[in-house]
């Protein structure tokens, strides 16, 4: 069993299961295709607003955001029958960009975890957009921190959260 010792040493060294590779990728706005008002993210040292940036023009959420591919337009909510019905009932839309969503098991995990919450009226994981789409029951609230924690329980990490008009593309 001596050959197995290195495996356990390596396991012990891995103090965190979630790598931080993507947290520092905050370089963006270079191509002008993304509206800053559409993004919620933490502003780290590497963040470049450009010369015309007005610091009070938008709200900064304390959320790590992967800007590795900034050619994309921030995804809006995906409409399914369940999502549309929940919105029609007065629910609040939330679109969450999720990293590492590559298969149906990812979608299943997030469905299972978020569906247990009473605040969630509808849920849909869009593999094409890599988004978790939620509708929060009227009168309920699910904070960014709670969403981040639930995503972690499902085994994933979120990059950004958009709510209300931003989520609807308005």
């Amino acid at each position: 069993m001596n050959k197995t010792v290195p495996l356990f040493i390596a396991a012990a060294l891995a103090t965190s299961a979630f790598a931080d590779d993507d947290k520092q990728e905050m370089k963006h706005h270079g191509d002008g295709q993304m509206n800053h008002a559409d993004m919620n993210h933490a502003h780290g040292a590497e963040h470049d607003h450009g010369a015309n940036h007005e610091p009070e023009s938008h709200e900064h959420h304390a959320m790590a955001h992967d800007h590795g591919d900034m050619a994309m337009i921030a995804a809006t909510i995906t409409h399914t029958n369940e999502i549309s019905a929940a919105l029609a009932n007065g629910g609040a839309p939330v679109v969450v960009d999720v990293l590492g969503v590559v298969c149906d098991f990812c979608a299943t995990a997030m469905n299972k975890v978020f569906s247990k919450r009473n605040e969630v009226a509808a849920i849909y994981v869009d593999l094409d957009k890599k988004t978790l789409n939620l509708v929060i029951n009227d009168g309920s609230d699910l904070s960014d921190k709670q969403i981040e924690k639930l995503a972690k329980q499902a085994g994933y990490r979120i990059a950004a959260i958009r709510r209300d008009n931003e989520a609807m593309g308005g």
Partner: protein
Amino acid sequence: MINTILRIALVSMSLIACATAVARPVSYAGGWTLIETSNRASSAGLLHYTMNYNLSVGARYEWQRGSDTRVTAIQPTFLAKRWFGRDYQANLYFSGGIGTAERKIGGIESSGRVKFVGVMADWETRSLFVSYEGRRMNLGQLGNQTMHAARLGWAPYEGDTGALHTWLMLEVDHRKHMDERTSVTPLLRFFKGPALLEVGYNLSDPSPLFNFTYRF
């Protein structure tokens, strides 16, 4: 530094051997998963419960057909690292187990303690998949076994959520304790919702492969 070492290890393992990695051996917190595998060497079942996003504990039963050895064990699996990207995910798992092994040779039953450790690594996008799995099993007086397996996979289309996902895969495995040490198995993987099914046929050591995973 640790990140770099693990990254190099992951990539190296993928390139050197690329695995029969069980699809996501750690699920979401509070989730149960049933994993059945059947290949040229054995048929096995693992029912595990995910206690946290990085740890699952399960009960394993394995029947090694060639030697008529039956293994019953408790198997924890630890997600040591998950790399996230917008279009990819990579994982490094360590697993272990302890239990009993029974073997019947010429009508005589023998038994012993069994211990094993394993490592699994995978990298996947929605259309590409590479994985490696290695396991070292100590069966006490019944001997030792070492297994390495690697996989390459390609999805001809990107299925949407809830749709049928199809993968074409090629698995290469090496089992020192078997007559045909190295073998090749082309297989098809079907994915739909919480269920995963794999069917294939081993070309080197003619035998079917049948794997099934379901997440509750």
